[in-house]
């Protein structure tokens, strides 16, 4: 027994001496804050990480809610599955899955947002003490303000009023002190405005080739955010909601706030316009065909357009999950898949094609002409109706705005030296039809196939096999690299993305002027028509809401803008109330010799109608059990 007592005391004694400085040891694989920020290269490293975390809605943006957050990747790689936010609006469909507006159309960015804000606040705190000259200090102040403005804009867009944390919080054991209540929506947008202006006042001039924030990038951000805030204030009454969040002003702003924000948009946009640093890329095309190709090339190589690009996010590293993208493999047409098993996902809709003007009758959206009697409001083939007969399946798109031709691959046109075959079926000489199914028929000794070719690899439309064929009758080529064959491997796409470009600023300006009555009406009308001129139009249109929205939708299509336009103007619930999206079916009419094409409108095959719930104008606040914040209405 005595031995045990001795042993026990010895062990106790050892433990007393054992735990001396273990808790004070410094880790040898991490840098301390002082060491990192005292070296300018260290600051640059830190800044690169802040830029990486920026919520830029670019090619790799994954909009849906998923565990662990959104942005930049989806289950192993960017664009996995080929899902984009445009498929949740009226302008695009997914070729295989039922993508459409839902509670999942835009995901949470709360934890990631506050992490970025904390990281940038940490840097902001040390700026006054850094050993750098005043010029560089100003630039740092400007750049961190830009990042903070960008982060709070992304939060305000999704949640309305949010807790405004402008200093990195110190952790103590008093958890209650860490809880910051939500500011009102007005205060939050005001904060975004002041941060943008602080950035603009401190940053240097520059164009998109900088790949970092410039004075004009900050002003462009302000123009965009101010327009968003102004629209929310002006159009709140289109879909008013009630609840605690509304009573406290956490969501919802009065109409009087609208003119304040419209003025800020006007001022920021005018500052960019008057700088004379920017202009539209190739503003005077000789013909619509040239305009279409100019438009397409602007996106294939934004670095060739520094006069239009204001803020570019570059992708250079192939094979890295979080920078390179996968547009090429998921969105090129089926015939050019080159071994990739899931191409052809991006399908612009018939309603998108209907929006574009026709050069002969400019000034209005002109629906594609499919029937002789001109009544285009129908769904499905009616044998008693007379359809217009076309020589080729893309003739129906002739005379349409160059931007349609520059964005989409139309049936029977050439892409990467291949004729892209998109066909939905045929009408036999006896009048019987075979649509949306496999099959063939022989007429005058020639064999015709419903989808246009004998095997699935020879066509790119309507065959449900693999979900690899467009089901709207329209293919996609904006942002794709024509000269390069598809490489069927992950993360090969290195096209750079213009997050902000001059055309958007002009459209923001025109809308702000038209909606508020402030600003320069003549100038706004001029810039609106400059954009149309770049697309080959030779006539002018007036500065009306309708014309501006049409220009905005067709010019900025598929650049992750349409979704937010529908949100901020409260158009989503009106547009999507048990609403189908539609396709244009090219049908080979074998009653004619030589065969002609008729185009038939129908609901997109295998699709469901979608409804937008008003509560989706705001996201629910996460983590409420811990942070005790007031939730958004109807959640």
């Amino acid at each position: 027994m005595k031995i045990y007592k001795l042993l026990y005391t010895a062990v106790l004694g050892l433990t007393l001496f054992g735990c001396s400085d273990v808790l004070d040891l410094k880790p040898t694989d991490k840098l301390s804050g002082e060491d990192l920020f005292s070296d300018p290269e260290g600051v640059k490293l830190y800044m690169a990480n802040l830029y990486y975390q920026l919520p830029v809605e670019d090619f790799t943006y994954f909009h849906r809610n998923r565990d662990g957050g959104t942005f930049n990747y989806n289950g192993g790689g960017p664009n996995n599955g080929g899902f984009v936010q445009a498929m949740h609006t009226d302008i695009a469909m997914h070729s295989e899955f039922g993508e459409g507006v839902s509670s999942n159309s835009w995901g949470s960015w709360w934890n990631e947002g506050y992490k970025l804000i904390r990281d940038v606040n940490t840097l902001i705190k040390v700026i006054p003490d850094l050993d750098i000259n005043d010029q560089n200090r100003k630039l740092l102040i400007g750049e961190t303000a830009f990042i903070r403005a960008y982060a709070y804009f992304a939060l305000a867009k999704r949640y309305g009023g949010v807790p405004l944390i402008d200093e990195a919080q110190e952790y103590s054991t008093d958890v209650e002190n860490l809880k910051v209540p939500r500011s009102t929506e007005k205060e939050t947008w005001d904060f975004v405005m002041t941060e943008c202006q602080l950035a603009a006042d401190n940053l240097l001039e520059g164009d998109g080739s900088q790949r970092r924030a410039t004075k004009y990038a900050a002003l462009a951000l302000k123009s965009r955010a101010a327009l968003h805030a102004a629209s929310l204030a002006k159009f709140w009454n289109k879909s008013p909601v009630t609840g605690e969040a509304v009573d406290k002003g956490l969501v919802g702003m009065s109409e009087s706030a609208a003119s304040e924000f419209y003025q800020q948009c006007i001022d920021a946009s005018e500052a960019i316009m008057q700088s004379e640093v920017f202009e539209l890329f190739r503003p005077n095309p000789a013909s619509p065909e040239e305009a279409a190709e100019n438009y397409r090339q602007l996106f294939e190589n934004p670095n060739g357009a520094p006069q239009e690009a204001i803020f570019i996010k570059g992708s250079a590293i192939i094979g890295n999950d979080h920078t390179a993208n996968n547009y090429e493999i998921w969105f090129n047409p089926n015939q050019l898949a080159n071994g990739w098993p899931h191409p052809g996902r991006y399908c612009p809709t018939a309603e998108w094609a209907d929006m574009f003007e026709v050069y002969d009758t400019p000034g209005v959206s002109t629906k594609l002409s499919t029937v002789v009697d001109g009544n285009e409001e129908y769904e499905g083939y009616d044998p008693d109706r007379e359809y217009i007969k076309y020589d080729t399946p893309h003739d129906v798109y002739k005379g349409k705005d160059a931007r349609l031709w520059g964005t989409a691959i139309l049936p029977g046109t050439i892409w990467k030296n291949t004729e892209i075959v998109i066909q939905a079926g045929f009408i036999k000489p006896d009048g019987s039809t075979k649509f949306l199914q496999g099959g063939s028929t022989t007429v005058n000794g020639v064999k015709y196939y419903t989808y246009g070719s004998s095997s699935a690899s020879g066509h790119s439309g309507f065959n449900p096999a693999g979900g690899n064929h467009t089901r709207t009758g329209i293919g996609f080529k904006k942002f794709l690299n024509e000269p390069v064959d598809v490489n069927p491997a992950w993360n090969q796409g290195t096209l750079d993305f213009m997050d902000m470009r001059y055309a958007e600023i002009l459209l923001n300006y025109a809308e702000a002027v038209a909606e508020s009555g402030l600003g320069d009406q003549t100038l706004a009308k001029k810039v609106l028509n400059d954009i149309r001129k770049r697309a080959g139009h030779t006539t002018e249109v007036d500065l009306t809401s309708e014309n501006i929205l049409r220009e905005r939708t067709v010019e900025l299509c598929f650049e992750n803008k349409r979704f937010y336009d529908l949100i901020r103007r409260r158009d989503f619930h009106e547009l999507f109330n048990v609403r189908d999206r539609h396709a244009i079916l090219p049908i080979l009419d074998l009653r004619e010799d030589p065969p002609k094409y008729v185009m038939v409108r129908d609901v997109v095959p295998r699709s469901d109608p979608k409804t937008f719930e008003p509560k989706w104008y705001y996201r629910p606040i996460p983590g409420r059990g811990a942070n005790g914040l007031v939730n958004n209405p109807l959640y």
Partner: protein
Amino acid sequence: MKNIQILIFLMCGVLAFSSCELDNYEAPTGSLSGSLIDMETGETVQGDIISGTNIELIEQGYENPPIQRLVVKVDGTYRNDMMFEGKYTLLPLTRGNFVPKTDTLTIDIGGQTVHNFEVQPYIRIKDYSVTIDGTKITATFKLEQTVDDKVKSIGLFGHSSPAVGEPLQFGKKTKTLNKVVDPTTEYELVMDVRTDKDFEKGKAYHFRIGALISADEAEFNYAPAVRLTIPLSE
């Protein structure tokens, strides 16, 4: 030594069992049900189940409680047999096809609690009839409105489900009115489903007349759904 080992083993056993109590909570035993009743006619008020009226409850006695929502069905009734018994704050009933209520109540949910709501529906659909001729469905009806706001629109909705309504339809025929209506005016809506692939000949579908008032957050008021079969030959 062996005695000590057995003793230690038994002690561990006792410790293990005393630290794990069974944490089965009691299953909910409460039930709350009821109807939305037209305060003038005494009938239940029909509505939509999708994006329709929700009964909002907050269970008392907890910090940071979420709002619990009970869904009101198409026939105007609601039921939840899996409520925990106890006191609840019942928030004012709003966002429906009736004049919003303003009173917050406290209710005590027990084994079989029934709570009806007396509401004033915005619009009552009167003298209605829905008939079919070939592929044309004709609805005739009159509207009686109980508030001063304008009637925004009227509609005829068709679907295979008896819960048919504005959010649940294969086809519809709507008309914008934007005016205050007279209870003697007869309205007619005709829907032709000849080219609508969702309506198959020989099958039965439900058709419902609806009317929407222009008040904030208002929902459609309905007449009961009528079941009609699309005849095989035209």
